[in-house]
């Protein structure tokens, strides 16, 4: 997917603009000339393997770390040490350190001072939903409860630009579902720009409007989620009918069981789809996670070949 599809919308509504951003830690290049933009009031997934650079990007966008080269503009300005920009940002990371002997109640007491849009009622409801013991020392909370503290701050802060860096760590499946549900519900009522990095792509794939995939410090995909999902379809039916339909098309994957075949092909236009249905074939979507895994491993294979 080329960046061209992401700049189809006017950049006047871009909340985040990144141009040729590089970050070096000594000899290690964490980010290599990364460029992308994030539109206002959207949910973007920042995806990639471990160590790809997702957290580094978020730290640069929130001014928590410093740029080596390139330009970052958040709300039109460079974010580092800029209080007017930063007060609109909430960055929830799983490695957040809390002062010794702090309890969740201290966190929820102090957060409103830093986030003007803080909704205390929402925070209370979320505390109940996640069953968080507010009077227990943070050191003594379970991994899931610790994540819940971060998630609650991120949701209740209603910051115009909210980053969640792997917020699901430690959350059990029920808690994750609560998080997704509350996030979507609140996003519908109070639209804002949300950037979410996660490994559990399929769990959030319905929520994502835009997808940015990083691998080894480079952007390998920057597209609307719809476009990515449409980039492949699985055609299922009798072997002969399927083979007839897919001949001459880009074939990504084959599967067969007896007389049935299931072949994943590249992008299908609406006429192709009509033709497939007319031929008695079923069309099934390909999961976003599989598409991204495939794209990541394909790029990795190419890069490995080059070096």
């Amino acid at each position, binding site marked *: 997917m080329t960046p061209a599809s992401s700049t189809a919308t006017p950049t006047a509504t871009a*909340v985040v603009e990144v141009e040729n951003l590089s970050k070096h830690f000594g000899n290690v290049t964490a980010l290599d000339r990364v460029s992308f933009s994030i539109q206002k009031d959207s949910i973007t997934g920042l995806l990639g393997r471990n160590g790809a650079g997702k957290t580094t990007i978020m730290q640069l966008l929130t*001014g928590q770390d*410093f740029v080596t080269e390139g330009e970052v503009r958040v*709300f039109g300005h460079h974010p580092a040490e800029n209080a007017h920009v930063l007060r609109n940002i909430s960055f929830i990371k799983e490695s957040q*350190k809390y002062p010794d002997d702090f309890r969740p109640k201290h966190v929820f007491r*102090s957060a409103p001072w830093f986030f*003007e849009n803080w909704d205390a009622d929402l925070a209370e409801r979320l505390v109940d939903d996640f069953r968080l013991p507010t009077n227990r020392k943070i050191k003594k909370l379970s991994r899931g409860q610790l994540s819940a503290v971060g998630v609650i701050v991120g949701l209740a802060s209603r910051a115009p630009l909210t980053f969640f860096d792997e917020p699901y760590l430690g959350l059990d499946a029920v808690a994750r579902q609560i998080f997704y549900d509350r996030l979507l519900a609140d996003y519908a009522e109070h639209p804002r720009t949300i950037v979410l990095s996660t490994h559990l792509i399929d769990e959030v794939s319905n929520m994502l409007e835009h997808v940015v995939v990083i691998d080894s410090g480079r952007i390998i995909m920057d597209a609307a989620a719809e476009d990515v999902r449409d980039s492949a379809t699985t055609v299922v039916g009798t072997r002969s009918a399927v083979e007839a339909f897919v001949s001459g098309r880009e074939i990504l994957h084959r599967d067969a069981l007896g007389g049935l075949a299931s072949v994943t092909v590249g992008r299908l236009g609406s006429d192709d789809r009509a033709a497939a249905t007319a031929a008695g074939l079923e069309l099934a979507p390909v999961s976003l996670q599989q598409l991204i895994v495939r794209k990541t491993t394909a790029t990795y294979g190419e890069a490995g070949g080059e070096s």
Partner: protein
Amino acid sequence: MTTALLEASTTAPGAFARIWNVVRLHYTNRWTILGVPWMIIGFVFLVNLAIWIIIRSASGGQTSLDGTQWSGSTAYIFIYSIVVAVQAMNQTFSFALGYSATRRDYYLGSVLAFGVQSALFTIAFVLLSYIEEWTGGWGLGGHFFANAYFGTGPIWQRMFTVFGAFLFCFFIGSISGAVFVRWKLNGMLVLMGIVAVLGVGGFAVAALTNAWSAIGAWFVASGATGVVAWLLIPSALAAIIGFFVLRRATPRG
């Protein structure tokens, strides 16, 4: 064009409000910042009190407790203040950046918080020093809050020595903490190395010029007030340098 995205909010906090929010952040957990120090002071005081009672009863009320004015047991709370400042730089810094505070707002807010904390201690210590005098050393002639180092003399002197001493401890702690946050273990080692070199250098100068008696005389002549006045210089230096150290620090785990 994109500046339109930052709607001018009437509730946007100004610079002082943001700095004050950092002060409030330091005071969020009242137990750590107010409870524990006073528990320490209270405990050390009770230990001293017990010792006075023991001495008095063992000697049948004959021994004068004048010597207790040289007791250094009040040093505990000053050392603890250094520790508090180091902890603040390390943990509260990461936490405040997690709330999207800027380093500048955080540092200025912390400096102000140290000032507030020093002021609170000063008011309490000065009051207690007067109470100690009025009760004749807590009824036993002991010295704790009115001793050879602080707590005697006119009120301005009492306030100045205690305030200055706490400020010094907080800023020594905060620059150590800031160095650690920015440069981690290597930074701490370099800082300790520098302090060691300066210390050995000072010792060498004193020993080679046989200036010990002169140094002793200077301390006696300046008194606690004079020493604290001179300590204001390293305090200010530590405060200023700490700002530049923290400016490029990152809250990496």
